């Protein structure tokens, strides 16, 4: 079943060559309860390692059920150990951060057994060995004898064909040692059991075969070797690797992270610095961009297109009509703004003069702002006026917001005149005030476009009011707009401008260029952070050699061990991303508050403006991006040390010095 054929194992120590195994030929069969005796340094443990594939012989070969293991890959060996070998160590080698039950469940999970079933089997095994009460405890809460029983349960739970025990009683007192071996003998009658020890009494009492080894050579074997070739029975040797559930790897990673929570937290916090910088710079760029765009949008409607003559002073009516009839133009108006003088009678019955700016009203703008008192004009004789105009008409200077309704009551239904309509200043026209907007600055009167056009025609030369036009397009397709723009430029000598688009594009250009540079330079600190993550994971690997050794002995494959450390890096990355997000959001909110209280508010107070700036725009997509990038980057940084973990000769850490 298990056979060593002329096996050598040589170690190099300084200039000396050490023959740990020297031409060893041995064969074990089902039912062997073999004791391997020898002094320390005689090669006992090496023999055990070579048998289990934890170590590779320098020369010669190991046959397992007739298969030459020289054909085994590391992965095959791992699966072989997992399915067919149970390990028992002197130092128990339980995993401290897992409960007793989880320790015993572990090899089953590596076999791919369903979690529920695995737990059930582990519980049964622990019950058999008399540890039912202790399943939920951590190994360190148990006595040495109890811990060794857990280790035995762990070795037996997968029902392996081979059990290898390396000084299993070395740390136990005599009585406990005998009890342990007796239990093992009782439950492993159909297996190959090889016990390495230097306790002769124990061997005499329990062994059905005793092998003595000295200086790497077999000194004496109580069972004569039948030199027949082993029967080949490959079917029973299953080395198909199972799929290890991610959950168990995650649990390892999680436990490790939390057992070094201070270090993990500090590392994550350091890594977070770079992310915080990136987030804050992004927030501020987005914030400024957003505030600027909002400011632009409040002044210029985004869907408004302006038409200007390129080398002429005005757009004549023919051109105007041709453009209006263009398929992509929905509406076209001259951009008329008239300064109109108006006389009105004051409360004291004096006549005063007021000049207001007459502009066409945009119903959507009023709707959008939601600040209209009264209603919109329904015919050419009705107007909406701004609060400023209303105040002027009623000889008031400033009122607080609660009184706006009162101001409107004062002017509603009254007339406002447009004077000086003709050259001798005699003609005038009256409009009825039906609404008021809450604008405190411009002294505006909003008329319908048609009314305004008539006023302009009466008052001005066409060169003066036809200087530009405003178009609303029937298409939002960029290709169509470009075509229209080309047509107008080439055929009519007009330029079509979306002022909002132009300004916001320019803002975006500047902002994103700045963002690129900022983030680009911030990346330097992420490189540093990457080195840190790599080093910390590397240290973590070195510190946990023993755990890696246990997992290897239990049959975990390289990819499983790498997975643990990668997940650990990922958790660290997530933590640093989270720390960065929280810190950045707090700093951003704080800075915004400071800005609003100490700069924006005084500025508004001084200028009477109503700036509403969000200096830092806390952008959720940016945070999400940083979280994802944090995890991925940490895993990338942890890749090399994780790979290193699988290459360590971890098993040597399992033995006591």
């Amino acid at each position, binding site marked *: 079943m298990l056979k060593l054929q002329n096996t050598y194992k040589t170690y190099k120590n300084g200039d000396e060559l050490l023959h740990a195994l020297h031409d060893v030929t041995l064969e074990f069969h089902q039912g062997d309860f073999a004791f391997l005796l020898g002094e320390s340094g005689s090669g006992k443990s090496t023999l055990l390692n070579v048998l289990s594939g934890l170590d590779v012989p320098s020369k010669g070969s190991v046959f397992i059920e007739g298969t030459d293991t020289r054909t085994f890959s590391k992965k095959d060996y791992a699966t072989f150990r997992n399915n067919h070998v149970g390990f028992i160590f002197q130092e128990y080698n339980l995993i401290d951060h897992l409960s007793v039950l989880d320790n015993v469940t572990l090899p089953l999970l590596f076999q791919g057994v369903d979690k529920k079933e695995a737990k059930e089997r582990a519980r049964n095994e622990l019950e058999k060995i008399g540890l039912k009460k202790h399943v939920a405890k951590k190994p360190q809460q148990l006595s040495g004898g109890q811990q060794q029983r857990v280790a035995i349960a762990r070795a037996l739970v997968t029902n392996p064909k081979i059990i290898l025990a390396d000084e299993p009683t070395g740390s136990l007192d005599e009585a406990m040692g005998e009890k342990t071996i007796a239990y093992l003998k009782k439950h492993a009658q159909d297996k190959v059991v090889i016990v390495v020890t230097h306790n002769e009494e124990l061997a005499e009492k329990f062994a059905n075969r005793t092998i003595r080894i000295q200086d790497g050579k077999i000194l004496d074997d109580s069972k004569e070797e039948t030199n027949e070739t082993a029967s080949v029975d490959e079917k029973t040797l299953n080395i198909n690797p199972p799929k290890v559930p991610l959950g168990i790897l995650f649990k390892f990673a999680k436990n490790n992270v939390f057992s070094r929570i201070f270090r993990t937290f500090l590392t994550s916090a350091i890594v977070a610095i770079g992310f915080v910088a990136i987030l804050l710079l992004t927030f501020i760029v987005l914030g400024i961009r957003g505030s600027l765009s909002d400011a632009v949008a409040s002044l210029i409607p985004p869907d408004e297109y302006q038409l200007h003559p390129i080398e002429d002073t005005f757009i004549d009516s023919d051109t105007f009509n041709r453009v209006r009839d263009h398929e992509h133009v929905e509406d076209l108006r001259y951009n008329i703004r008239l300064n109109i003088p108006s006389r009105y009678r004051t409360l004291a019955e004096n006549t005063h003069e007021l000049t207001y700016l007459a502009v066409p009203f945009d119903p959507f703008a009023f709707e959008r702002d939601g600040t209209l008192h009264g209603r919109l004009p329904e015919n050419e004789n009705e107007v909406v006026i701004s609060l400023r105009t209303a105040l002027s008409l009623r000889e008031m200077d400033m009122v607080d917001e609660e009184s706006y309704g009162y101001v409107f009551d004062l002017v509603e239904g009254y007339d406002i005149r447009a004077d000086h309509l003709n050259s001798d200043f005699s003609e005038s026209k009256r409009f009825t005030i039906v609404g008021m907007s809450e604008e405190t600055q411009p002294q505006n009167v909003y008329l319908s476009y048609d009314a305004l056009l008539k006023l302009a025609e009466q008052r001005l030369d066409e060169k003066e009011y036809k200087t530009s036009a405003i178009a609303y397009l029937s298409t939002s397709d960029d290709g169509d707009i470009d075509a229209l723009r080309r047509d107008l430029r080439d055929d009519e000598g007009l*330029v079509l*401008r979306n002022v909002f688009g*132009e300004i916001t594009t320019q803002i975006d250009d500047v902002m994103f260029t700045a963002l690129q540079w900022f983030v680009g330079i911030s990346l*330097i600190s992420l490189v*540093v952070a990457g080195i840190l993550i790599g080093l*910390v994971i590397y240290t973590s690997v070195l510190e946990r050699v023993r755990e890696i050794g246990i997992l290897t002995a239990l049959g975990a494959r390289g990819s499983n061990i790498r997975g643990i450390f990668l997940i650990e890096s990922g958790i660290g990355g997530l933590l640093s991303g989270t720390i960065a997000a929280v810190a950045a959001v707090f700093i951003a909110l704080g800075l915004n508050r400071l800005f609003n209280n100490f700069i924006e508010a005084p500025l508004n107070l001084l200028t009477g403006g109503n700036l509403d700036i969000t200096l830092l725009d806390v952008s959720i997509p940016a945070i999400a991006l940083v979280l994802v990038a944090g995890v991925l980057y940490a895993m990338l940084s942890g890749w090399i040390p994780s790979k290193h973990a699988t290459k360590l000769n971890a098993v040597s850490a399992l033995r006591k010095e």
Partner: protein
Amino acid sequence: MIKLHEIHKIYTQGKTGFHALKDVSLYFEKNEAVFVYGKSGCGKTTLLNLIAGLDQPSSGEMAINGKLTSQFKESEWDYFRNHNIGFIFQQFNLIEQLPVLENVAINAKISGNSHTKSKKMALEMLKKVGLEKHAKKTPRELSGGERQRVGIARALINDPDIILADEPTGALDKKTGTEIMDLIKSISKGKLLIVVTHDLSMAKRYATRMIELRDGKVVSDSEPKDQKVKLTFKREKHRKSLSFKEGIRLAFFNMKARAWRSTLVAMGLAIGIIGLILINSLFITIRTSLTEQGELLRDNPELTILYRDDSFSSREEFVETLKTDYPYWSDISYSPNFSLSIVENETTQNPLINPLNLSRLTATPQSAQIRSLYDDFIGDGRFPENESEFALTLSQAQNLFSPDARLTRNEIWERVQGNEYKIATNFQYRPDESMMDANECQFVEDWDGEEASLPEGFFEDFENSSDLESHMETLSIYRDEPIEFQNRTYFCDDYTQVLWHNDYNNPTNFETLTLVGIIDEGVFGNALFHEDFLMSIDTQEHYYEMQFKAIGYLDSEHIDEKASIIRSIEDDGFLVRETTTPQFNLLSGLSVLFTYIIQFVFSAIAAIAVITAGLMLLMILYISVLERTREIGLIRSLGGTRKDVRNIFVGETTMIGLFAALISIAVSLIIILFSNVVFPEQLFNFLSQYYRNLPEGPLFTVNIRLMAYAIVGSVVIAVISGLIPSIIAGKKQPIEALRND
């Protein structure tokens, strides 16, 4: 020699206590080989630790050589351990990364011996234990017996009078163990040797006195002794300690042993510094070029030279005279600032939108100075090469179109490229109507340029001297007779001078020229014409204009003598004025400021990386302290002080800082070299997308001071980052450190 009196030691853990030593009273003499034996847990090791001062008794007194050790300060214990005790450990406790020789020498160094002396002492000791051949090997390459010999050599190098050995053969096989015991016995002659063991047979063989401990009590003593001790209370004098140099040396070995980690940490620190060096190297170049441009204009301003007489027959003669009589010019040319006006685009037949106001140009000949400073043409534009060509600035060209059209630079160039324009070159003149007010007229006739010789009351019109200066520049364009023009008489009170203007509404002469270039230069405001064209413009007598006017720039050798040169020219009857362009100064000042701000912001962001690296160093060093607890404990048990331990770690951070500085300087120099030599054009084009005023030539300036800052900064950051871990390391108790296994 050593007297223990009623010593108790109780370890507490949570609520439970463990009585490790119970009422131990012992007296040890010189020249004894005392073997303390007993089962594990009987208190032997505790006893040894108490004697070595690695642990303190819970009660009882101990006196060594008459000194009451319960009165010892920590530093006195350190001194005592270092000078009087040699400690031999079961697990050897060699420092793995140090060569054998250094492992032995370190004990001598801790006593303050120099490197050479310690080495010599160590070699001697190694000879004694038969290992002189292995001096350069690391402990890893030795067998267990050889390692223990190194341990013995180390214990004995300071010639202590007490040797304490804790299971010295515990990790060795029988044969080697015997050899080692023989060695210990032979070298401890005349000293007090206390060995702790559980090997009774060995004890019997070597001991002169055997003490058995059981459950913390002395149960047997083969040769019980006691003696009254006379106590002395002399404090130890200030002792020497491990020098910083040695700290560096030890750090070097440690870095070698953890080469990968050290390199990565140093690289981490270096990356940020490289970023800072590169950013600042680039910005130094940019700022230098900006400042140079600014200084060029400030230090070498345009000099306007005027001559009022008719003594020159032609403009050429005037300029020639200036050139030959005053050989100080880097560039001088006849240069009236003609005011011209573009009237019509003859190619497209388009009248100009606003010819009267917007298309007015100040025309300047292209001096070499101008050619060198302003050459940023849009598209394939160029300087005018003959008298029928001209070039405009971007803002002038924009005035050819509706400002609302917002044509881009390239669109404008596309539209005007090669077009012929009708340009008005001469106009009727009229007096400035604003000069009707007599008070605003100014005196100029026969003025000699000295402020003192201006008539009384002259200054009253000016509120400050800068007004005065600007008016002085226009002094020459006043006339000294009342003018009658369009039925109005223009005069100035006493001084009777009138300012004349071009009347741009009434051009009298037109020329047609081809536009060959648009200069995209915000500061420069003049249209450029070929000198021949300007010379050829009709020389109709300008009432207000000096006949002869040249603009010159001094060459670099004579800039410093500017004042005396101006004076000498003026002595010859010329009028010389400096034209400073405050607008340019302001703009160049602003752009330098702006560059500073960008440099600061970028550096600040890069500095985040350096801070991150500093914290990384802190973290890694902290982990390193945890890993090397054993080494720290060993050094403390050899008698190293907290300061010694701290020094070792500070030495390490200093080394890492220096290493990082070297990496960063080397890497940035390589990058700079590459960018400046191998792909300067690509880099230039790349950066030009973001910053248009990049200077030509190498983009990175190698600045020695910057490199020096990098070295100092790197070391300082490394040392500061390492301070906390170093202090933690220094605080580790030797006993804890040794127990940690």
